[in-house]
């Protein structure tokens, strides 16, 4: 069976979002996914570092051309989609810290960041980046009180490929619903 999404996988890159942005500018198709086993320069909002060692799920998706209002909605919906998967698949109670962080027992387990490149009134490129702490064994001292991984809570390995496929399928569904409602 043909895979639903084109996934470009890297062992170790500075940032999946930077790579996805570069590919989007070179006309790579929407819904292409850049996936990394680890990031050396993963970042969140305002360039804040995102701890990205091996074990976590780090990916960025090139989004189809959409209005800025729809992109704001998809950022929030991404957090909702991921929370729902965590709740349904692992029987946990995640909390969405609006608009884009997901917490488990008050500690951050996932962050979502959308980045746009805008010229005049046109959005040239939109990328949504996700960092989900799936199989991280332990966090450094400065993060261990504020971050947590699914493995630490569930005491088992998570299948990153399976959870990635679910997130992508649901994100695509949600964006299609938003676009239909705006037509």
């Amino acid at each position, binding site marked *: 069976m043909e895979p639903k999404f084109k996934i470009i996988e890297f062992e170790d890159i500075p940032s999946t979002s930077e790579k996805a942005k570069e590919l989007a500018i070179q006309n790579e198709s929407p819904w292409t996914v850049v996936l990394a086993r680890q990031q050396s320069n993963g970042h969140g*909002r*305002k*360039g804040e570092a995102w701890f990205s060692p091996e074990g976590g799920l780090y990916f960025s998706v090139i989004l189809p051309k959409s209005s*800025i*209002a729809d*992109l*704001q*909605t998809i*950022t929030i919906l991404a957090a909702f989609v991921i929370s729902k998967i965590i709740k349904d698949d692992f029987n946990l109670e995640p909390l969405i810290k609006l*608009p*884009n962080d997901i917490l488990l027992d008050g500690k951050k387990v996932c962050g*979502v*960041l*959308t*980045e*746009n*490149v*805008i*010229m*005049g*009134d046109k959005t*040239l490129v939109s990328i949504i980046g996700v960092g989900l702490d799936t199989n991280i064994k332990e966090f450094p001292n400065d993060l261990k009180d504020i971050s947590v991984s699914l493995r630490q809570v569930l005491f088992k390995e998570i299948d990153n490929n399976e959870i990635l496929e679910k997130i992508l399928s649901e994100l695509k569904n949600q964006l299609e619903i938003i676009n239909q409602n705006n037509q």
Partner: protein
Amino acid sequence: MNLKIKIKGREYNVSVEDLADTVVVNIDGNEYVFDANGNGKAQKENSGFVKPASIAPKNSKQIKAPLSGVISEISIEPNSLIKVAQKLLTLSAMKMENEILAETQGKVKEILVKKGQAVREGDLLIILE
């Protein structure tokens, strides 16, 4: 962010703007401002939904904010020469980072904003000549 919310059959037009330390919520033209602790108050009634950017004539030498947010990075300096598609600044809004590129070439005449400054949709940010 613009939303339509239906409550008991009545539809409300709602916009939410994240402006650094405050969040401005506009419900059918009535504006409410909330601080970081969630304390809110009505600020202005019937401010309407007409945005300056939508009524002003397009001028690619005047760079305006495409949405409300906070200036997180300025990538140019006054008097510098700008090429088409050069990055001018980054505007952070509702957890989205937005790189604003130049639509036209020119010389930076004036930068009207500073890093960390909150701006609203349609505000003039940079003037080129």
